Each structure stands twice: as C-alpha cells, then as structure tokens.
C-alpha cells in the first residue's frame, strides 16, 4: 500500500454521478477473495485488506485502485510460502504494535503476531474500540489485546506438549 495514502469515508461516492461510476465494480467480491489468503498464509497483505475492507458497503474509486494494487502485489509474489519450523529451541514469542490515530476515524489499530520457534503461527489486526489519547495508551491497549491471545495460546501449547513454566 502507498505509505502516504489516507483512506476515509469522505472518499466514498455520494452523488448519483459518482455512484454510477462505481456500479459494476465487484469490490466486495474481490475483498472476499483476498481475505482468504490474508487469513490463511499471506500475512503481508493483512494491513491493506484490513483497511480496505472497511469500505465494502460503499467503495470509492481510490479504494478500488488500492485494492487492485494489493492484487498486483499478490500476483507478483505468488511464490511466497509461509515456512514453519527452525532449529532453535521451540519458544513462543509475541510481538505487538499499535499505530496511534493514523486513520481518519482516529481509532488506533493494534496488531500482533506470535512465533513458535521461527515460524509465525498467529497474527491479527484490529481497530481499537476506544480512541487512545496518547501513543503509550494505544500501545498499552494493544498489549492487553495480545495478553488475552497469549494466555489462550499458552493453555493450548501446554496441552499439546505438557505444561512448562516459561512465560511468553
């Protein structure tokens, strides 16, 4: 995605003329088909798909162009595979981040990912419910979001390979 691009609801068509230009554009269908790889293995497009899927109801030309860019990227990098494993000791590690009010609606986005050994096993992107007043607060909310997932993951992994007292 373009690093400087801003996508907001103001860019959605409102006049009949603008709406007519967007008829026949299969925006929701295309979003649906890129959502699948984003959820299953292509975590590099998660941000783009996550932002653009907010405009499914009434997409504007700028959103459509951005979506086409995601598809072009997917086409040029279709050889990328998500590789699991690694030789190091199998530990669970999490990374979390939040952007602070980068979108026009000012809800921060929290994102996280978990590694098992050297392979990524979990990832997520989510708009935060409340509007954070500082970047620290946004990150703090993101941390809480990760903690919830981490506790679940810890329970699951303990069940699979027996309990260990190593914090995530």
């Amino acid at each position: 995605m373009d690093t400087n691009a801003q996508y907001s609801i103001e860019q959605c068509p409102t006049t009949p003329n603008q709406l007519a230009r967007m008829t026949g554009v299969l925006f929701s269908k295309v979003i649906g088909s890129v959502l699948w790889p984003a959820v299953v293995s292509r975590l590099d497009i998660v941000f783009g798909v996550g932002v653009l899927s907010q405009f499914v109801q009434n997409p504007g030309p700028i959103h459509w162009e951005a979506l086409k860019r995601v598809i072009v990227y997917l086409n040029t990098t279709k050889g990328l595979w998500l590789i699991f494993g690694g030789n190091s000791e199998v530990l669970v590690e999490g990374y979390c981040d939040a952007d602070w009010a980068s979108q026009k609606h000012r809800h921060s986005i929290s994102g996280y990912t978990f590694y098992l050994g050297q392979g990524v096993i979990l990832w997520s992107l989510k708009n935060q419910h409340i509007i954070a007043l500082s970047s620290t607060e946004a990150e703090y909310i993101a941390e809480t979001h990760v903690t919830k997932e981490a506790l679940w993951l810890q329970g699951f992994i303990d069940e699979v390979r027996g309990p260990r007292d190593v914090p995530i």
Partner: protein
Amino acid sequence: MHCDNQGAIALAKDNKFHSCTKHIDLWYHFIREAIEDKKIEIEYVPTEENIADIFTKALARPRFKGFVEKLGLKDFKRI
C-alpha cells in the same frame, strides 16, 4: 512478548497509581495481572525490529521486504 513503547512497558510492569494514567479503562490493566502471575514477560524491542509494525501501518518497500523475510514468507523456488 515484545513491544516497542517504553512507556507502555513501564505502565504494564509497575503497579503504582499515576494520576496521568487515571483515564485508562480499568479493564486494560488486565496485563498487569498476567505479568504479576508470571504468565507473560514483556520486553522492549526497537521499532525497526518490531515485526508487528507490518500489521499497523503501510511501510516503505525496503522495510516491508525485510519484515516479510523475517516472518518466514519465502519464495519456494529459491529454497
């Protein structure tokens, strides 16, 4: 667990009350409990190395490519 904001890490580790953080919803202090019970550990990581960055903003090409590699997305023809 890794995070790239020193302030948020300090808040999570420190159980004291600060008037500046009064407004943060009680619910979000759940992380303090998890750290106290030693269920999770939180560490600082510089923004350049925080892989979760790829999920929260549009990155420029060189950084994006570096993260894609680190995430274990590899071209199967080159393996």
